[in-house]
């Protein structure tokens, strides 16, 4: 359904030319995404996890065509993304739920118009009453009431707004949905309802998801495959259960150790040690080496490539050498 090949996106983060001249600074490029490849088969969910700033949202934006890639390609249903985006019928098939629900809702529109907009634009339902009925149905599905459609976004709480953006994304009956932290503002009970709804839609309509979340418990519940990103690259990719039962990459293992302890057993959680590196001047070789307990000289010099290891794809010298 979706194939990303060696995707990259760079940002120019230089200071203004004059200041740069005075300070004798070179131009600075930030490699937000640096050679990311994955495929998502129809009806499946790929999740991306990884530290804040590692490039997950940038991948999401590349995949739905909101940023042009600096390098690499995206294919949607076997056609180049640019071709798919040019055709309204194809565009309707992909939707995105943004990380920031506030920024993505037009504050001057009533909620029912926000949700109805894609329905009208793509002429999915005919007639005012039918559209209203569909909007009411969507609102109910996300745990709001049809009468809430009368209100404006600012009249809702954070989690209610997040649910409005989910209803909006679902309103065009997409087949492929990019969900960037879709439940981060929801309490665990509403979150469970939304995740159950997403799974149900996947079962009944064969939806395909690219899912992004910091909550690893949530990721485990929804994913078929998981990609672990570090500084713009995928360092490990595996079937979800494999990743959670036998994480291989040292970073993946560190990430699992850092999960908060709900049982209050007194286990101190171990934050991934060391400094988060700067994406402007990433470390040489393996970008994780300054923080990695297994790092050696080879890691500092040579960038590891993704290699199959069991059912996983892992970019790590130690794993490849069998000392991981």
């Amino acid at each position, binding site marked *: 359904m979706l194939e990303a090949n060696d995707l990259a996106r760079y*940002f120019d*983060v230089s*200071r203004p030319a004059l200041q740069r001249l005075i300070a004798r600074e070179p131009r600075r490029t930030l490699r937000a995404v640096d050679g990311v490849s994955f495929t998502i088969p129809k009806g499946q969910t790929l999740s991306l*996890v990884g*530290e*804040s*700033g590692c490039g997950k949202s940038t991948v999401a934006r590349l995949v739905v065509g909101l940023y042009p890639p600096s390098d690499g390609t995206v294919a949607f249903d076997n056609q180049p993304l640019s071709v798919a985006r040019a055709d309204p019928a194809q565009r309707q098939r992909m939707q995105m739920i943004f*990380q*920031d629900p*506030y920024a993505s809702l037009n504050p001057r529109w009533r909620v029912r118009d926000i949700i109805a907009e894609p329905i009208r634009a793509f002429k999915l339902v005919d007639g005012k009453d039918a559209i209203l009925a569909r909007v009411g149905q969507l609102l109910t599905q996300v745990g709001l*009431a049809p*009468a*809430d459609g*009368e209100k404006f976004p600012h*009249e809702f*709480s*954070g*989690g*209610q707004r*997040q*649910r409005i953006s989910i209803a909006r994304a679902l309103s065009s009956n997409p087949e492929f949905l990019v969900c960037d*932290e879709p439940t*981060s*503002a*929801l*309490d*665990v*009970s*509403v*979150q*469970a309802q939304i*995740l*159950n709804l997403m*799974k149900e839609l996947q079962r009944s309509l064969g939806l395909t998801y690219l899912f992004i979340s*910091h*909550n*690893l*418990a*949530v990721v*485990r*519940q929804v994913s078929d495959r998981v990609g672990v990103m570090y500084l713009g690259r995928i360092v490990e990719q595996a079937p*979800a*259960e494999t990743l959670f039962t036998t994480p291989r990459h040292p970073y993946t293992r*560190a*990430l699992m150790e*850092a*999960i*908060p*302890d*709900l*049982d*209050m057993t007194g286990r101190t*959680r171990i*934050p*991934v040690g060391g*400094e*988060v590196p*700067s*994406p*402007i001047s990433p470390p040489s070789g393996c970008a994780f080496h300054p923080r990695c307990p297994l790092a050696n000289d080879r890691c500092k010099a040579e960038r590891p490539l993704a290699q199959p290891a069991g059912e996983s794809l892992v970019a790590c010298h130690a794993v490849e050498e069998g000392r991981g």
Partner: protein
Amino acid sequence: MTAPLLEVRNLRVEFHTRRGTLTALNDVSLTIAPGEVLGMVGESGAGKSMTGAAIIGLIEPPGRIAAGQVLLDGRRIDNLRYDQMRQVRGRQIGAIFQDPLTTLNPLYTVGRQLVETITTHLPLNPAQARKRAIEWLEMVGIPAAAQRIDSYPHEFSGGMRQRVVIALALCAEPRLIVADEPTTALDVSIQAQVIALLKRLAREKGTAMLLVTHDMGVIAETADRVAVMYAGRIAEIGPVRDIVKAPNHPYTAGLMASIPPLDRRVDKLAAIEGSMPRLSAIPPGCAYNPRCPRVFDRCVRERPDLLDAGTTRAACWLHAHG
């Protein structure tokens, strides 16, 4: 017990709309002692952010505080003039909002916003303030802080913006922090770092904190006590361990049962059936009664206040004795 730094008494917040008056907060009372972290959880839309907004004096029309008081150090702050309240906010109370974009000005660099806040509240010159700003950015885990301090908010990732907001709230060294979902946009590792920072402030500087979050892991690690909100009221309040492990209110129990498991995959996640009533249609009696598995006749007639329930206090008739 130390005298509370913050005391909220019988707070009621109403919204006057064309569709009638809505009660968003109803009779909310709580205290926070110096150095104490009060966690706040509950259903989306239950009134958590509203509680925070009322404390920092940021309820906007058509909303208003219709009854009750907010006291800081025994002094009422809910009736201060706008300019007086601005002084309190910032210097005495630091606010971390749920939406980082409302706090950050998109037109100014991150550094400028930090330096302005610091020089407004602390006796530092701009150069010292800039140095302090870089330190704060490092403390909240922004890599290459010295290089990125002159970036604009949109050049940061979601989680990085959130950390800037946290730095902004802390940099004037307030005595009370009202933090609304401070860590939801953060990965587990940065989250651990931010929580460690907040806990250190509480311990070393006696900073008090209201911590609103949906993340039970964060609550379990950070909070001393927890208030559980439902439909504009506190459903249960008590020590964190009891709220998480041995809740006394059926809503709290349902909430805790909905936490997704980390150690296995389940077909269908447990969730509380139905949804919270809308503010305009809160049922008589206990607001949770349409969803409560243990509902009985008294629940649909009379509204329970917080009752002693052993280790916690719960607004539930199951705990009425005698």
